[in-house]
């Protein structure tokens, strides 16, 4: 597939990720796992992934998300957060605004 030959674009610390607006974060009580639900799909994730995604509101930057989680877990998590979110973006489940200014409320 031509898509595979594309060079992956790095995700900068200033990027402001948000869950794809079509998708919804939920908890599956049958499998007892967090899950991302989207049209014709369900991606089961772990608690760490859920913690990251819950902070992805389109306003916080990747650096800010890593800061919040770093404080919570007392560790430097920036590299892990970047790697996870880049993967989610490449799957189309996370959308990223690269600009420095957050979207205006109500826009």
């Amino acid at each position, binding site marked *: *597939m*031509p*898509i595979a030959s*594309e060079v992956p674009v790095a995700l900068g610390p200033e990027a402001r990720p948000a869950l*794809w*607006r*079509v998708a*919804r974060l*939920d*908890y*599956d*009580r*049958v*499998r007892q796992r967090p*899950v991302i*639900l*989207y*049209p*014709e*799909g*369900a991606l089961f994730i772990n608690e760490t992934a859920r913690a990251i995604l819950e902070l992805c509101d389109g306003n916080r930057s990747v650096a800010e998300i890593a800061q919040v989680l770093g404080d919570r877990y007392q560790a430097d998590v920036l590299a892990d957060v970047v790697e996870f979110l880049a993967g989610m973006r490449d799957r*189309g489940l996370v*959308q990223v605004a690269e600009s420095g200014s957050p979207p205006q409320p109500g826009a």
Partner: protein
Amino acid sequence: MAGLPTTLLAELTYRCPLHCPYCSNPLEMVRAEGEISTEDWKRVLSQARELGVLQLGLSGGEPLVRKDLQVLVAHARREGMYSTLVTSALGLTRQRAERLKAAGLDHVQISFQDVDPVTAERIAGVRSVRQKEEAAAIVRDLGFPLTVNVVLHRANLDRLEAIIAMAARLGADRLELANTQYYGWALRNRAALLPTREQVERARAIAEAAIREYRGRMQIIYVLPDYYETYPKPCYGGWGNVYILVTPDGKALPCHGATQIADLQFVNVRDHDLAWIWEHSPIFNAFRGDAWMKEPCRTCPRKAVDFGGCRCQAFALTGDAANPDPVCTLTPLRRIVDRALEEPPLDGAYVYRWLSEPEGAPAVGEPAG
């Protein structure tokens, strides 16, 4: 041993204002009086969620003709399912859409037949384009994620670029470009629907370029024209693996075309719990695993990829659902598909989808090939 299902397609009714000749519904369809009740559906939705289902497709026919649609949507939301309304959009007024939003509907998929209104309405068999465009705007306005679905065939494939641009203009989050799959009415109309190899190759290049171009703005799903493929498609992740379909009269099926497989024992959600149906019914176990497979599937490494292809297609084209899917070039049965591709085209000679045949319509015959 059965895993957990993820997806339920609830075909609420066969009633539909459109008459598309590529409909995947069976040729013989129950009328309104044969449909199962609101309570039946609520019970099925609860049982499905208990069994592991997360994705609910509300389909048909046209699901909007069911007056209890928002009751079922609300029930699905309470149970924790992601619900998609699969609709022609005829009957999707602002008031109806607002009620569905309030009930917790997650996502709306609207079918468009073509970008050109004349050919779109020739396929649909009714005037519909303006209503669809208005409904798409309402859906967007209310904040629903929108998927535009277009079934592709000989008469619209050459306008693929314009079709993609139309979906973007409508504000679609997703665009499903589905080459016709030849089941039900589509199989009957195959000679009028099959595109040429040149059309298919050109469309594939356009779709691949568009997938890249619209990445991050509109997700494009391109359902391959399997008659022109080398290997068959994996049918819903394998028979009885992740997918359950319930028909308007309550039959539980592992696949759309399964009503056509004559030697299956059908089970009804009015008589059995969905968990029993999933785990123990003969129909859901008929083609699980690989013990049922014949050669070359049984010893083929691809059996883990495509499970021997579609059982319904194998039955429809060969009369034996345990045969390899004739799309596969590794089986001598492929000659059946090759012969279909060589048949002379029947441009525009559609047999439209009706709940019962209008007077004078040709009798239902065996597909050629």
